[in-house]
């Protein structure tokens, strides 16, 4: 459903991605790992359509359509969800209104009836229980004054409510204690379904103890330099990223 072909992309005029090719099929979980600065977050943001992130060449297709032609809100309504590495605070906008507007935008797009307040509350309260969030968070402004862990849980809550077709988690696991990490992992595992896919962007292997990926890709210097199964993540955990970068350095660049 997602096809990335020889993608070159730049942030603020600087080329970061240098020829990414990746296919994500329905039901798969892919982990994208790599050292800092390898382009992991750029890839995640390019998929979400963030301004300032520009495709220079190559293609991204979503169920056969050119994804790059869609504005971010269209991508969201089409079922692409990015859990942000640094979720922003939005004073004055409560989680309740925000989640309801987001869900109804997606439902409307799919030709489903919008949920009214009662049905929405019932749905969101159930999802909050799943994620382990207190209902009080519904009435607080989006992420405002939330701890790091609470912000990440809030991303997982949004993901659970919106039930995306493709969820991309941009280092959602970083900086979390073990309880929050488990909550994030459980949220991802609950989402797993034959028609849904997940891309986990992560620096560390530990999330992959709880969410078992089908494929692991290592990104270095803007390219996928190695792909493999779960064992590749374990190898990276033991050996670090240094050996990969050295291998890349010795390969001739095309």
């Amino acid at each position: 459903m997602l096809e990335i072909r020889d993608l070159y992309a730049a942030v603020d005029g600087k080329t970061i991605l240098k020829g990414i090719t990746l296919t994500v099929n329905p039901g798969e979980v892919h982990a994208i790992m790599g050292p800092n600065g390898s382009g992991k977050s750029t890839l995640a943001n390019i998929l979400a359509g963030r301004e300032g992130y520009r495709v220079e060449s190559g293609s991204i297709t979503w169920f056969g359509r050119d994804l790059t032609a869609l504005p971010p809100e269209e991508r969201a309504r089409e079922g692409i969800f990015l859990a942000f590495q640094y979720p922003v605070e939005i004073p004055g906008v409560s989680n309740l209104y925000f989640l309801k507007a987001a869900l109804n935008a997606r439902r409307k797009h799919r030709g489903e009836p919008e949920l009214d307040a009662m049905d929405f509350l019932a749905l969101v309260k159930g999802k909050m229980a799943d994620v382990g969030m207190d209902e009080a968070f519904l009435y607080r402004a989006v992420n405002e004054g939330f701890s790091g862990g609470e912000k990440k849980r809030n991303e997982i809550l949004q993901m659970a409510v919106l039930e995306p077709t493709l969820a991309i988690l941009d280092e959602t696991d970083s900086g979390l204690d073990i309880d929050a990490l488990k909550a994030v992992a459980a949220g991802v595992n609950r989402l797993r379904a034959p028609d849904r896919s997940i891309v986990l962007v992560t620096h560390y292997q530990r999330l992959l103890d709880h969410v078992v990926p089908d494929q692991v890709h290592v990104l270095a210097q803007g390219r996928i330099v190695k792909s493999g199964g779960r064992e590749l993540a374990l190898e990276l955990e033991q050996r670090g990223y240094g050996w990969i970068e050295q291998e890349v350095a010795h390969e001739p660049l095309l």
Partner: protein
Amino acid sequence: MSLSFESRPAYLPYREAFDQTGRLWDDAPAWVAARREEAWNRFSAVGFPSPRDEEWKYTPTSAIEQTAFRPAPETLLVLRQVEPFIPFGFSGPVAVFVNGRLQPALSRLGGLPEGATLVGLHSALALWPEELEPNLMRLAADEDNPFAALNGALAEDGAYLRLRQGIELDQPVLLLHLTAGNHVPVMAHLRHLVVAEAGSRVTLLARQASLGDGVHFVDTLTEVAVGEGAAVDYLKLQEESPRAYPLAQLRARVEKDGRFSSRIFSFGGQLAREDVHVELAGSGASCQLDGLYLADGHQHTDTHTRIDHRVPATSSRQTYKGIVAGRARAVFKGRVLVERDAQQADARQANHNLLLSPEAEIDTTPQLEIYADDVKCSHGATVGQLDEKQVFYLRSRGLDDAAARAALTYAFAAGAMEGAIPCVREAVAATLLERLPGGELAREFFHEF
């Protein structure tokens, strides 16, 4: 060298209005006539503010001067026309003014507990002249604002609200002013006096609006005396038509341990100005001045505040927010004066502005004048646009760009409504959603919980 006001074309209609209005005050005590005369003399000596006047540098009033305003005619309205302006759920006393004059038949002046009085100014002067004498046109006698002088000279009517010692009103009091008239430019001048004696407490809600979209000039002045340990909270919603010229002055003097607050929502008018001047006259006196102004299209909105810390141990807080869109312009000037004796003064001021278009303009000037050496004073002003990171976050969840911007704009404004009485908050929110760029989308976003 500019011509003196008396030789300018605008002079005569105002002189006529002064003579005409004088007849309304025939029955009033002699000191009223003397103070009107004094005010007229001050106005006719200076005339309308000139662009060289520092206080009016960014707010030219030549459009007012050049429009031939006539005193607004007496207009009778029916209750049905007034009811939409009484906030839903509001059951307190109401004084309704139409075109500058009290309409007893549309008002609910009675029903206040003993010790609290709400009447028209003319009745008050007939009943208790000696009670009004120390305050009326005295709390705001020294204003150098020409419109204060003009108001003193041309005011036709107003409300007198008085609370005896220790009287606490649980229900807010509503002062409603409507200006009607579509055919010729009209003007109305209104003057309210509020006297809260020691230990009393009251919340005042002032609302002013236009019926129809005529061109009118509304000049309002409110004098407030806050007695020892008394508390007065003043809330105002200005929602005149975009063709009106609403100018208002609020002047309060706060005695020992008294507390005054104002919260002004200024949304209407092609040229709107709010002058708030508070004198902290007794130790322990405090004030909190907040507001939200909105200007879109070709509107011009101006807020000038001034707080005088005159004695030791006084405190003031100010938070003003502004939203400026289209080709509109907003002006904020916040002046805090700490006199030599006012040690331990504690003053904080903040002014935050949201600019929604490249043609919109804001001029914000904090001005601290401190003559004491043991004080805590701070001020901060910001002018910015919507945070693109927030816009993207909302879009990444499926909201379109316009809806995301509308929701964020409303959220910025909504902070200024926090803590207001629920029925007032609802009335303000309704007007805000009507007038805010993208208000329809924000209404959709925020409806239903």
